């Protein structure tokens, strides 16, 4: 190896050449888990299929099963076949298969981590992974300290001679400010901040990234993107399903911690932040942090927040049971499955514009969107009957499932003298095609391997969002049972009342 000059085959103008990560491997803790089988392993396959993984990429599975190598391969194979987005191709499978390794053991098992180290070293040798490894902790957060400690103990966490070691962790990043700090202390003792990748899969979605393009690449929205024109903003993430088999994860956590703390506050930050100096990770993070530190809670949480718990009912044509009847849920559980909250932003752009955040399970349908509602025109030169059906102009960013943008405005009803009514103008993103809409996890895993952090929240952001949420969750904890709401509805009455108090209504998404 003579020179370390720029690679002559690369050229910034050559936009076709994909970014392929350098030689590396991924160690996956919790391979048998739900996330790993449904999202991570399929995403790895899809990346390989799209030619984005480096030749020699290796995947080490770590689990407490007494498995032979074939058993592990079978698990990956089945997961990929069932859940991958792109078609199954034998040759892609073959390429991946040669890089599979399996290590069996528990998290407190020193010899297992010793074997893990040997495996990693063997891969560096035989597959040329060159000492670059990412450790994906797809396990319950309570085991993070064990695993991170073991990685350190066995010298797996420290890079040497220019290679890298990264750790990937999944939400929840704690369950309140104190636990988030504790978790961070554990991880940051072993890995420096730039090597810690916190996954918020929402940030990997194309439509979420498009919020930035939409806001900062266009001239016509920015002038009205402030309290002069915007009346309020509604951010909704509704799920139609219940908790499924995830009682252990969900009970005691609830909707606010599960969704508002990360996804909704991140969405809010992207919608409301000032324009970053550049799209570098640092600038983006700075603007998000500034925004999050300007967020204030309402004085009266009883009037401006709402929570609920789904009761039995009918959802989408199916009879479903209530939260308290779910398996492994105590019938006195106070965990909320619906949470709604008013937030304000104390800055020049947004003062006086409420942001309403809501999320829930077993709601009317599955939808995530951000709706920016504009103020009414200051003067309407029509009779009041003509404008009776005229609502507020709205701009809706549809995040999922029907990705796109809707503009809602008034138009004359054809055939009438002068009747006005709201109409929608829709922009839809293209459907799913070979490459068009990669799964969020593909993008995120690739970014981890490339070491490209813009889409990963840093610890500061996590802390800021817990600061916002802690008082709310605490207030709820002191105030008894959440209000039941019928499955398949749009949430409890208190949520409707919460907006009515401000003279507004929830949009039916």
């Amino acid at each position: 190896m003579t020179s370390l000059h720029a690679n002559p085959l690369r050229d910034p103008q050559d936009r076709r050449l994909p970014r392929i990560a350098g030689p590396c491997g991924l160690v996956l803790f919790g391979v048998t888990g739900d996330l790993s089988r449904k999202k991570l392993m399929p995403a790895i396959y899809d990346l390989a299929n799209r030619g984005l993984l480096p030749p020699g990429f290796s995947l080490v599975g770590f689990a407490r099963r007494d498995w032979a190598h074939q058993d592990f391969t079978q698990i990956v194979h089945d997961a990929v076949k069932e859940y991958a987005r792109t078609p199954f191709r034998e040759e892609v499978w073959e390429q991946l298969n040669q890089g599979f390794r399996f290590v069996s053991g528990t998290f407190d098992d020193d010899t297992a981590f010793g074997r893990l180290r040997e495996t990693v070293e063997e891969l560096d040798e035989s597959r040329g992974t060159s000492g670059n490894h990412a450790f994906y902790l797809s396990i319950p957060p309570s085991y993070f300290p064990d695993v991170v400690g073991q990685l350190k103990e066995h010298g797996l966490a420290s890079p040497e001679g220019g290679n890298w070691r990264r750790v990937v962790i999944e939400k929840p990043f704690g369950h309140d400010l104190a636990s988030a700090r504790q978790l961070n202390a554990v991880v940051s003792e072993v890995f420096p901040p730039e090597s810690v990748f916190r996954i918020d899969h929402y940030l990997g979605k194309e439509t979420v990234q498009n919020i930035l393009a939409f806001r900062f690449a266009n001239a016509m929205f920015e002038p009205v993107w402030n309290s002069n024109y915007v009346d309020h903003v509604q951010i909704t993430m509704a799920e139609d399903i219940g908790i499924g088999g995830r009682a252990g994860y969900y009970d005691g956590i609830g909707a606010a911690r599960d969704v508002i703390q990360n996804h909704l506050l991140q969405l809010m930050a992207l919608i409301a932040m000032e324009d970053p100096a550049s799209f570098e990770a640092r600038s983006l993070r700075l603007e998000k942090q500034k925004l999050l530190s300007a967020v204030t809670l309402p004085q009266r949480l009883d009037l401006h927040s709402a929570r609920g718990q789904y009761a039995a009912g009918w959802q989408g044509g199916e009879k479903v049971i209530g939260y308290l009847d779910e398996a492994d849920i105590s019938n006195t559980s106070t965990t909320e499955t619906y949470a709604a909250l008013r937030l304000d932003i104390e800055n020049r752009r947004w003062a006086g514009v409420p942001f309403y955040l809501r999320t829930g399970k077993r709601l009317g349908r599955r939808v995530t969107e951000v709706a920016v509602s504009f103020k009414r025109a200051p003067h309407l030169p029509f009779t009041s009957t003509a404008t009776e059906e005229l609502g507020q102009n709205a701009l809706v960013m549809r995040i999922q499932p029907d990705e796109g943008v809707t503009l809602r405005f008034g138009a004359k009803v054809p055939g009438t003298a002068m009747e006005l009514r709201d109409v929608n103008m829709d922009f839809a993103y293209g459907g799913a095609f070979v490459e068009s809409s990669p799964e969020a996890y593909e993008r995120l895993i690739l970014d981890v391997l490339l070491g490209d952090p813009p889409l990963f929240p840093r610890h500061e952001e996590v802390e800021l969002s817990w600061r916002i949420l802690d008082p709310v969750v605490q207030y709820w904890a002191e105030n008894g049972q959440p209000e039941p709401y019928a499955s398949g509805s749009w949430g409890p009455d208190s949520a409707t009342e919460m907006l009515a108090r401000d003279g507004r209504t929830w949009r039916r998404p």
Partner: protein
Amino acid sequence: MRIDLTGTNASQVTSSLLQARRQAGSPSMGMVLTLVVVTDEAHHGEALRSAREVSTEHPARILGVIRGPARGKSRLDAEVTIGDGTSGETALLRLSGELTRHPVSVVTPLLLADSPVVVWWPNDAPDDPAGDPLGRLAQRRITDCANSRRRSTAMAGQAQHHTAGNTDLSWTRLTPWRALLAAGLDQHPVRVTSATVEAKTPNPSADLLAAWLGSRLEVPVETRRSGGPGITAARLHSSHGDISLDRPDGRLATFRIPGEADRPVALQRRSTAELLAEELRRLDNDDIYQQTVLAYARSQQPPAKGKRSTGTKTTGTKTTGKTTGKTTGKTTGKTTGKTTGTKTATKTRTGSTRRRRT
């Protein structure tokens, strides 16, 4: 839904498109471009199928233009399709009689307002697409030399007339190869002294790969004939050994870098729809293709008059990239095509390329 029109004109086609869209219930579909597919009776089925597939990623109005017999009465027949599993809309236009010489008059009124136009010749293409009347409507012109009846000479023709905004699917087919070779050199940054490309010839992709390696690395590149399918190997030689990519079966390749174990990589040949989708992702000029195709043109002898075969000489042909006049790095989509020492005349046009992304 499908509407058939016989003995029609462009304005009736327009109103059928509108009618079909209204009936489909979604008057605004967010179409981002017009894709004109210039084809013939024998090939339009497959070409339009690929175009429709792409339309799910890049919602487009697809205009299939079939030039029928030039004799007889001037006549336009059209088939308008909307829905059927795609997010765009398609009009298949059959031209016959004198009208075959005036396809622009049919296509112009059917272009989507104020959005990019791409013309694609899935099979035979004019040597100078930018000079073609339909080609002139577009800022991107896509040819496919490998599917041309003049497979061995088509690329030479394209290279000679290259204009900013032209690309060829033989180039698109190379992206995975180029990506892996670049990755190889990332991982093992050696000084490459020469290179070899092996392919079943004639193969325009192999010619372009050789030209790309030659011009980027400034080393001699040898093209060798093999049994195929397609390109079977690419090797970068250095004093430390070879960085190589061998793909004997068109599916699974072996990637080698000196001092490390062989690694299998999937390198399957992609479908036309996938190639087209890659093509439509960027609509500004492909500068690297331009550099490559100009380097290729330089490596060719100036065509002797009356002789047809100026194409790739294989086995033992050295494409030297030493005299690369690299095009200047550009940031706009405008044409520069500034080359030094180019023997082959290269036309450049400005103004037809606009920067727009979908």
